[in-house]
């Protein structure tokens, strides 16, 4: 069974990596951004499997992005691997601080407290004019172990980097979801009491899921800022987090690849509605959202996953 996970990981990598050849420039950028955001959403999926949804994942997206930017600008680090590691480490620490606190909350309260935390960050960053305030900061192009590409090679390298990270994290998360703890998490979503009475700590499970979400959020934010070249406090604003939740709901918690497909669909829909309905793109997006929620109540993943039905 485990072999098939690795096999599909390889297939996914090859399929996505092929994009670096066939995709035009704008689409490759769009895909890279979508995949980076998909990483953040994958973290939400991990929490969703435990029955909670964070409306404040922008917190880690933003911390990751600012960490990378500040380190790059002040310490002169431009290596993408190092930047990703450092941002992830910072997010890990912050996640470990808030995780145990948030693991006591459920439903709308979890959603709102996580939102409040990210809004406090938003407010604080907006005030810090020495790091750009609401205007934010720019970050230069990353280097790859000393190699400093420009133009299309840079975009290709970035794209392949995010593809690699996506496939690795996707595979790890799939292994986690299928693991004993993964199944217990799913049971928690259903019936917390049962899980506690079987002798497992629900708080502990929730904390882990939250910390994984923090890590993925930080990595997503780092890649996003390196692709964009710019970060501002909007990264932590509630609408940013709301978009992540939307992707997570669109994908459903059943399938890992669905998260990234959903992220790409959203980016495409938004980009084209922006251009073709510049005055009513919000309307178009809202209708799209409603249609998705009505048509696919369990998310895109339910199209391909048979988990809901009897397995005979």
């Amino acid at each position, binding site marked *: *069974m*485990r072999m098939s996970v690795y096999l599909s990981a390889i297939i996914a990598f090859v399929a996505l990596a092929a994009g670096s050849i066939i995709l035009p420039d704008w689409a490759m950028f769009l895909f890279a951004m979508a995949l980076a955001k998909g990483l953040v959403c994958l973290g939400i999926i991990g929490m969703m499997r435990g029955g909670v949804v964070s409306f404040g994942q922008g917190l880690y997206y933003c911390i990751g992005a600012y960490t990378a930017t500040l380190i790059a600008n002040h310490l002169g680090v431009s290596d993408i691997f190092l930047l990703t590691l450092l941002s992830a480490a910072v997010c890990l620490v912050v996640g470990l601080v808030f995780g145990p606190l948030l693991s006591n909350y459920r439903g709308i309260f979890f959603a709102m407290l996580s939102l409040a935390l990210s809004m406090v960050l938003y407010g604080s960053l907006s005030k810090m004019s020495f790091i750009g305030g609401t205007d934010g900061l720019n970050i230069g192009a990353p280097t790859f172990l000393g190699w400093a590409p420009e133009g299309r090679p840079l975009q290709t390298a970035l794209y392949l980097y995010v593809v690699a990270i996506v496939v690795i994290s996707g595979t790890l998360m799939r*292994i*986690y979801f*299928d*693991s*004993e*703890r*993964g*199944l*217990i998490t*799913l*049971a928690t*979503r*259903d*019936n917390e*009491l*049962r*899980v*506690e*009475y*079987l*002798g*497992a*700590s629900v708080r502990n499970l929730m904390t882990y899921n939250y910390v994984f979400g923090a890590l993925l959020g930080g990595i997503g934010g780092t890649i996003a800022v390196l692709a964009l070249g710019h970060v501002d406090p909007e990264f932590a604003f509630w609408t940013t987090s709301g978009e992540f939740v939307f992707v997570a709901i669109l994908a459903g918690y059943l399938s890992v690849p669905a998260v990234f497909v959903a992220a790409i669909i959203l980016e495409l829909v938004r980009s084209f509605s922006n251009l073709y309905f510049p005055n009513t793109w919000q309307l178009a997006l809202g209708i799209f959202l409603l249609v998705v929620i009505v048509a696919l109540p369990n998310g895109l993943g339910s199209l391909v996953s048979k988990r*809901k039905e*009897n*397995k*005979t």
Partner: protein
Amino acid sequence: MSAGVLEVRDVQKSFGAVTAAKDVSVTVPQGSVYSLIGTNGAGKTTFVNMVTGYIKPDAGQINFDGRDIAGLAPRQITRLGIHRSFQIAQLCNELTVEENMLVAGAIHGKTGPSFLRRADDGSARDRALATLERFNIAEHRNRLIPELSGGVKKLLDIAMAMAGETQVMLLDEPTSGVAADEKFPIMDLVIEALRAEGVTVIFVEHDMDIVTRYSERVLAFYDGQIIADDAPDEVLSDPEVQRYVTGGPA
């Protein structure tokens, strides 16, 4: 004090003006089968809830293996070997019967639940299947919970509680919500399985036929107090019990 003895001493609990437990004291030796009787609100479920950690007593001690467990969290008590079932079977409705069992198995695995080991790898499934077979519900293993009959749900609920090392099992109304003709077969199955492992059993029951048939000793509750603690026949013929609990001679 010998191993496996559950000793409840002077336990008190009130919810606002309602007294749910008053000076409750009882010693349950290892391997015995006790039943709890009483009208609704008499304090039976409160007793179960206090022993298993859902409710913290206001005062008093609950000793198990010589350690006071009053006020511990449910999962800590479970880890000590005291398990329970529920009036309304507590199952994961979005999972299949087998997956429910795998959850229980994963939590009680030797090394604790893993981030990497597949929940449904071969040996785990074998173990789950064995337990399901012991409780005669293996045929339902691929069905989702809402499709099951009350009796199967109850059995699964108990089977899950049995996944770990069990020393004491508290069954909260094991036959409620079960069709009349299934009650005795289920009790036969459950009590036999538990006794085979030398587990101490405490069950809450309204059906006096079941009480007399399966328990060695009966605790009768009234208004938060234990008003009788004796063999079934003695308790059921006690006039006080007849007045407050059974509503007439058995």
